[in-house]
């Protein structure tokens, strides 16, 4: 499996800030962040204007030993805590796969 980052976002991008915060909090062995905001342009139309103030949509794959022994809800809470005020601000939705190193080896 290719372990290199999917892309190298510029340092001011939301993806880059996400990367920094998750790295600081969880020291991940693998961290891939993909900005898929372009897939959700429909949020900006019609009744979904409610969503328009929101930020981008991102998908993160995070492999960290911090997840060892934790159920998925607790893993996601750790990530949300790391991301902090980006949620509901620059980040509208953060889809995530949270794996321990052992789970990653098997995947």
């Amino acid at each position, binding site marked *: 499996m290719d372990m290199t980052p999917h892309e190298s976002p510029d340092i001011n991008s939301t993806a880059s800030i996400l990367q920094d915060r998750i790295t600081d909090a969880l020291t991940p062995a693998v961290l891939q962040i993909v900005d898929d905001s372009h897939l959700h342009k429909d949020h900006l139309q019609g*009744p*979904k204007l*409610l969503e328009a103030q929101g930020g981008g949509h991102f998908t993160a794959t995070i492999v960290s030993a911090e997840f060892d022994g934790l159920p*998925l*809800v607790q893993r*996601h809470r750790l990530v*949300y805590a790391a991301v902090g005020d980006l949620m*509901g601000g620059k980040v509208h939705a*953060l*889809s995530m796969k949270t794996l321990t190193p052992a789970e990653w080896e098997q995947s």
Partner: protein
Amino acid sequence: MNLAEQIKHDIETTPIILYMKGTKEQPQCGFSNAVVQVLNSYGVEFKDVNIFEDPEIRVRLSEYSNWPTIPQLFVSGELIGGADIVVDLHNKGEMSTVLERALVTPSQ
């Protein structure tokens, strides 16, 4: 009962409750829709709450659940997760075990 108390009451007394964007008949977000589709595939009864009905629902819900995003699925009073977790449990074949808890836990 104020809204925060109402949310707590609903979560604690409803076997399966989904806070979502839109309704189960007409989801207004792909993530909410994904959870509805998973639940429907098991043929279980569940209550849906449309968070767009009152902007305060979302605020009070997240305070209660310590979870920042929508949808949120609760079974027998316990947060199961959002769309990622629900789809993941479904794909791993663990969702039926989770939903069975709703059947064995008496509601008040």
